[in-house]
């Protein structure tokens, strides 16, 4: 019996990613005939089971396992494609499965009746396949392939409602912004290959590698840090870091279940995962850049989230902000804390989005089609806790986790990052302290804006229904509530650590060991959580006062609020500077192409054509003319002589006599 259950983790992992691929192919072949999505759901269920029992448990805390086959050969170098299973990759794969499973179940209810639902299942399976494969790829090139595939699936899903102009614009934007990052990734791959001669992860970062020992590679050191920077650019686009974050809020045009899976929990985490994978490449200065970018991202995103009116936009900005936290964690060298936060964040952010989806779902059903009211706008909500009590409870749990209240998973992971940041900064002193301080401020802002969302949506009085006994509005269906409840359970502390206030005992943190630690400062472990909790409580209290008790201090169209709501006009700035200048440049290039390059070609062509016409004339009229003249002449001569042979005896005789006559005349006149 034990032998039967003993399946090689490599094959199990392969199966984990082949199930969704098979579901994708099946759905692609069946098309509209299969709208139930049962195949995709079954595939992800099998994947989750396989990933948990045959991959995660055998590998976790054990020696890494790797298997590969040769993929293709360029010159003397053979590239291999294979699977690398270590603590990080199996954790990531399991996480993707566990997040994808509730989202699939939820989608069955949420997307019911959509005319394009067969495409939805197809894309979702494709995404799952790509993401699961990205997690376990043992080769940077293979990883890049799936990285692109993930981006492509995301593009398809953002533009799922492709008849909506905003959705089309959003998926285009996401795709183009991600391209910038992909170029970074590609340059990084090229640099690594040029200097290391291999792209295999275990050869690059394994125990035999010089990188593992942190030995500086003297002749290539500078290039390796450029490679690190290039990888970071790749991660910046995928994980929506500050200058490239613009695509993520727009990506909320996709179905909410998709936002929940892709744009909150898994795909955007791929950038952080990449940073953790190539972590040994980063040197001190690159790490500092990463930490600074992460801090800026966390701060700006939480700032923008303060005044968003769209419920999904608030969540989108909170995602960006939390991704900033993870990137800071990588930047300060605590990539294990980053991964820990990635895991906990995946659960509560997914839950937040699913709750938001439930609310939007019910709003869209309750609002009469004729009334042109945006079901996602928080200004139209209010007092929903009476109608959707379970959703309310679950969303509050997720929000508390996001805000980092004790007893939630968010508390553990967020504190681990902030404490690590403080320890890191104290070790260096001076201006470095700005980073942890900013993170603390961001935590307060996070608490405030998520509190604002809860209060605006669930408290107060319904805005659109004056009668409080309305029956149109009711709790989300069971098919949506069950996956939400599961995620809610996973947002609590005991899933990760039995000690609700100490992140160090979390099983995940012990599985991902750092090479270099910080000088632990014990007092911080007491002090920081207290500060954070106090700050968050103040944030919630402020939110309660402003939004529930109606003591809102600002005017409706306050310039500052407007500025925040418009995301500091970054989109407009990009539109003006980058998009417009690109358009002008391409128009100029088009002009050059059309008039100079094509003009030259066309000029040469018309000259050739004219010469051709002249030589054709000469050919037709002179050369052919001569030949034809000879031919015509002989033809007429023949025609003339033919008349003599007319078969008439008398004519012949006449000719004969005429000739005789000529003979006589000749003889006479001689």
């Amino acid at each position, binding site marked *: 019996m034990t032998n039967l259950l003993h399946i090689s983790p490599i094959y199990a992992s392969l199966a984990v990613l082949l199930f969704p691929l098979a579901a994708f192919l099946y759905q692609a072949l069946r098309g509209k005939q299969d709208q139930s999505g049962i195949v995709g759901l079954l595939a992800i269920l099998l994947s989750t089971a396989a990933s948990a029992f045959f991959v995660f448990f055998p590998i976790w805390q054990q020696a890494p396992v790797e298997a590969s086959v040769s993929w293709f050969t360029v010159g003397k170098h053979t590239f291999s494609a294979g699977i690398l299973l270590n603590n990080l990759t199996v954790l990531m794969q399991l996480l993707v499965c566990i997040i994808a499973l509730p989202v699939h179940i939820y989608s069955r209810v949420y997307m019911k009746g959509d005319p394009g639902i067969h495409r939805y299942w197809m894309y979702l399976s494709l995404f799952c396949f790509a993401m699961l494969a990205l997690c376990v790829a043992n080769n940077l090139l293979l990883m890049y392939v799936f990285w692109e595939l993930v981006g492509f699936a995301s593009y398809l899903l953002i533009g799922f409602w492709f008849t909506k102009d905003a959705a089309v614009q959003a998926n285009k934007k996401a795709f183009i912004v991600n391209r910038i990052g992909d170029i970074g990734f590609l340059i990084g791959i090229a640099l690594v290959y040029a200097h290391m001669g291999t792209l295999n992860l275990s050869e690059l970062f394994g125990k035999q590698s010089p990188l593992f020992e942190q030995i500086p590679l003297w002749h290539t050191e500078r290039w390796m840090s450029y490679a690190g920077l290039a990888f970071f650019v790749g991660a910046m686009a995928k994980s929506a870091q500050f200058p490239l974050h613009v695509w993520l809020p727009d990506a909320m045009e996709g179905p909410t279940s998709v936002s929940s899976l892709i744009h909150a929990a898994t795909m955007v985490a791929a950038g952080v995962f990449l940073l953790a994978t190539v972590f040994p490449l980063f040197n001190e200065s690159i790490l500092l850049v990463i930490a600074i970018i992460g801090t800026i991202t966390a701060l700006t995103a939480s700032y923008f989230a303060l005044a968003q009116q769209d419920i999904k936009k608030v969540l989108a900005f909170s995602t960006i902000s939390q991704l900033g936290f993870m990137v800071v964690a990588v930047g300060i060298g605590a990539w294990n804390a980053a991964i820990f936060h990635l895991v906990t964040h995946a659960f509560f952010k997914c839950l937040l989005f699913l709750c938001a989806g439930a609310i939007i779902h019910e709003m869209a059903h309750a609002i009469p089609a004729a009334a042109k009211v945006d079901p996602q706008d928080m200004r139209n909500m209010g007092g929903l806790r009476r109608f959707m009590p379970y959703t309310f409870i679950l969303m509050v749990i997720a929000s508390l986790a996001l805000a980092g209240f004790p007893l939630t998973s968010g508390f553990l992971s967020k504190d681990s990052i902030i404490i690590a940041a403080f320890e890191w900064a104290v070790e260096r002193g001076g201006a470095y302290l700005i980073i942890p301080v900013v993170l603390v401020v961001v935590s307060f802002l996070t608490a405030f804006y998520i509190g604002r969302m809860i209060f605006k949506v669930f408290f107060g009085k319904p805005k659109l229904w004056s009668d409080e006994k309305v029956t149109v509005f009711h709790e989300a269906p069971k098919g949506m509530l069950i996956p939400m409840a599961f995620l809610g359970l996973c947002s609590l502390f005991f899933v990760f650590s039995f000690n609700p206030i100490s992140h160090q005992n979390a099983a995940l943190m012990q599985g991902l060991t750092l090479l270099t630690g910080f000088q632990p400062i014990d007092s911080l472990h007491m002090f920081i959580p207290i500060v954070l909790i106090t700050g968050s409580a103040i944030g919630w209290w402020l939110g309660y006062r402003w939004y529930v008790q109606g003591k809102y201090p600002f005017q409706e169209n306050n310039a500052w609020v407007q500025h925040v709501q418009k995301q500091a006009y970054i989109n407009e700035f990009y539109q003006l500077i980058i998009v417009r200048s690109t358009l002008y440049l391409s128009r100029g290039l088009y002009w050059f192409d059309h008039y100079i390059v094509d003009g030259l070609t066309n000029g040469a062509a018309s000259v050739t054509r004219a010469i051709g016409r002249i030589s054709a004339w000469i050919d037709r009229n002179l050369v052919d003319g001569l030949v034809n003249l000879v031919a015509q002449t002989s033809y007429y001569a023949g025609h003339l002589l*033919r008349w003599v*042979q*007319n*078969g*008439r*005896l*008398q004519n*012949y*005789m*006449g000719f004969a*006599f005429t000739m005789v006559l000529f003979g006589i005349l000749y003889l006479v006149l001689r």
Partner: protein
Amino acid sequence: MIPITHFLVVSACIFCIGLYAVISKRNAIMILVGIELMINAAILNLVAFGRYDKADYGGQVFALFAIVLAAAAVAVGLSIILMTYRKYKTINPDQITDLRD
């Protein structure tokens, strides 16, 4: 005595008439008649020159010989015309153009 020139002129005239008939007539009988005229013009020449051969009368003899030959030739010619008529249902030489290429 009539000089020989007169004979020759008459003979030439008859020959030309015969030649004309042979070339231009649309009836084979008339062509045969033209041929007879031409033979007779030749015979006339033989007789006329025969005057200078008083000893043997060679010219007279040849004339008689030629007349017999002409009679035989007419018989042959008429039979040819008859056969031609049977074959082509016409004796107009213009309509018999089998010699054409």
